[in-house]
């Protein structure tokens, strides 16, 4: 070292390094609007010094591309929170729709209000009790019964339709999950073959983008493997993608709804508790709706069986004792009672208002039917209270899920801002870097120019010596 040639070589390297740093910064600026892009910083690497007579002489600097500014732990935490947030968001949407199927008992709206229907039905028996032979009052009972049965059965039909719609949504989400795990396996393979020991830059961005999308859809665990590989499992531990191989989720129908499988294993319930959009959808489909529907069935079954029993215990207007027949269709089991509820009695004379064996003008049986309103005949509650509890339980679930969803969204916001600060392109920073590298480039050029002059002088000195 210590020669002009060495200095020129060194400064040429510096110019190259500055140029490479400018390229990295330019690439950052170009990708400023690209959400999946991760900011890169130039990887400056000092060249090995040369030692002459024990003294070290620097040999300049090299830029070996850009290094992506990412933190895998932070990204994984964000993915986890996105899974929970997406799950609560889709559950909240389903619960809000479910809640919309029920008008609160306190509402003043009468149309489709099961709570009002229940009151009106038992009130119609109170009216009949005051005039047991009145055809108008008998028609009133049948009319109130029909309204109640129609509202309960149409609400049950609505719940079944919502369940079918969620089932279809779950299938759509699973198709998206399968496409993403396939893409993930392909990126894994590319990363492992091209960057087994270092950050894969754009490919790593692509993999992170796939993982982020996957986290919106399904609950996953990420396991890093050898040579920069990655395995992805469901939160229940079933393999979805292992390095270059993906395992598709398959479907099959069980009890009228779609179940999901990995290999031979039914992972439906694990997916429901796992998170992501799918978790919320399956929780609503398999838990929230069936629970609500079961309560509605219990209500329909309780009202129908008790009212039918009372009607068959009295004397109708035709004088038949204990043989008036059913007002509602007789349910054989609780399940399905709500959807099937209907009024089967068409003749108002067959309403048994009189007590067994008493004259047709008696009102004992109508009173017994009216009193069902205040008796704990459904799950230890009166019909109105039972329905009221059903609606308020649903409201509490919506409220709880809303709070949970807001908190999880806040958590995602906190993490996302950290990811943006670390990995996002800040144009002010990049402008500052451009300025810095440009000045460094100009300085190196100036050095190069000076060295060139020195070199020319040295050559001329040689020429002058030779001439003289």
């Amino acid at each position, binding site marked *: 070292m210590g020669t002009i040639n060495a200095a020129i070589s060194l400064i040429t390297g*510096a110019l190259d390094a*500055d140029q490479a740093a400018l390229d990295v910064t330019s690439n950052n600026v170009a990708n400023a609007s690209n959400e999946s892009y991760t900011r890169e910083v130039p990887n*400056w690497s000092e060249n090995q010094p040369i030692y002459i007579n024990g003294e070290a002489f620097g040999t300049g600097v090299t830029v070996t591309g850009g290094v992506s500014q990412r933190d895998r732990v932070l990204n994984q935490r964000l993915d986890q929170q996105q899974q929970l947030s997406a799950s609560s968001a889709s559950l909240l949407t389903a619960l809000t729709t479910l809640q919309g199927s029920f008008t609160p008992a306190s509402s003043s709206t009468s149309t489709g209000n099961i709570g009002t229907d229940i009151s009106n039905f038992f009130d119609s028996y109170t009216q009949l009790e005051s005039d047991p032979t009145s055809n108008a009052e008998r028609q009133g009972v049948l009319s109130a019964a029909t309204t109640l049965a129609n509202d309960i059965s149409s609400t049950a039909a609505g719940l079944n339709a919502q369940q079918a719609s969620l089932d279809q949504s779950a299938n759509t989400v699973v198709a998206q999950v399968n496409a993403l795990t396939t893409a993930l396996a392909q990126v894994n393979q590319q990363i492992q073959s091209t960057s087994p020991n270092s950050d894969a830059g754009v490919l790593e961005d692509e993999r992170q983008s796939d993982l982020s999308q996957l986290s919106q859809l399904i609950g996953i665990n990420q396991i890093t493997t050898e040579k920069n590989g990655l395995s992805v499992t469901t939160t229940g531990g079933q393999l979805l993608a292992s390095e270059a191989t993906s395992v598709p989720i398959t479907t099959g129908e069980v009890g009228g709804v779609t179940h999901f499988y990995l290999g031979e294993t039914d992972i439906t319930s694990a997916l429901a508790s796992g998170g992501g959009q799918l978790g919320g959808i399956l929780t609503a489909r398999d838990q929230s709706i069936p629970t609500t529907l079961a309560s509605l069935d219990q209500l329909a079954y309780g009202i129908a069986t008790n009212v039918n029993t009372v009607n068959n215990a009295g004397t109708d207007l035709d004088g038949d004792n204990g043989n008036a027949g059913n007002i509602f269709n007789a349910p054989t089991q609780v399940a399905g009672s709500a959807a099937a509820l209907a009024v089967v009695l068409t003749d108002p004379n067959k309403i048994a208002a009189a007590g067994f064996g008493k004259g047709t003008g008696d009102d004992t049986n109508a009173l017994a039917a009216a009193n069902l309103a205040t008796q704990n005949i459904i799950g230890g509650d009166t019909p109105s209270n039972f329905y009221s509890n059903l609606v308020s339980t649903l409201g509490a679930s919506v*409220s709880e899920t809303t709070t949970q969803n807001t908190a*999880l969204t*806040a*958590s995602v*916001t906190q*993490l996302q801002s950290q990811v943006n600060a670390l990995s996002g392109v800040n144009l002010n920073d990049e402008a500052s870097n451009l300025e810095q590298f440009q000045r460094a480039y100009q300085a190196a050029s100036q050095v190069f120019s000076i060295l060139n002059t020195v070199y020319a002088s040295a050559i001329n000195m040689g020429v002058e010596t030779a001439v003289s």
Partner: protein
Amino acid sequence: MTIEWQEQLRPGVALKGIVQQATAALIAMDADRLEELALCCADLNRGLEGSGLDEESARALRSAASDLELLKCILHETRANLAVLSRLHTMRIREALWLGGRTSVESRNPGAEAFSLRNRERTLEYGDN
């Protein structure tokens, strides 16, 4: 740390406002604002100790229950995020220290390094002569 509305409004209403603002500050991880609000809470407590709770204040306090529940949930989530964020903070401090050390030996700025080496070479060339 006096806030106009804190003095003017009733304690229950003020609490609801504080809780909502604390929730927003917590989401934004605005520590300064959270400290301000904590001082507001202390002021509010002192005010309540003196005056006692009337029926209206108690009702207003109950109305803040859902906001408090939300704040509690966000606090829980933030606490769970802290392990990751602390790790990131440590990483940044380490990086800043490393960059500081690097700047002090004037070795990574390519231009400065080139000038420095050029001077060394010049000295050696002069020495050779």
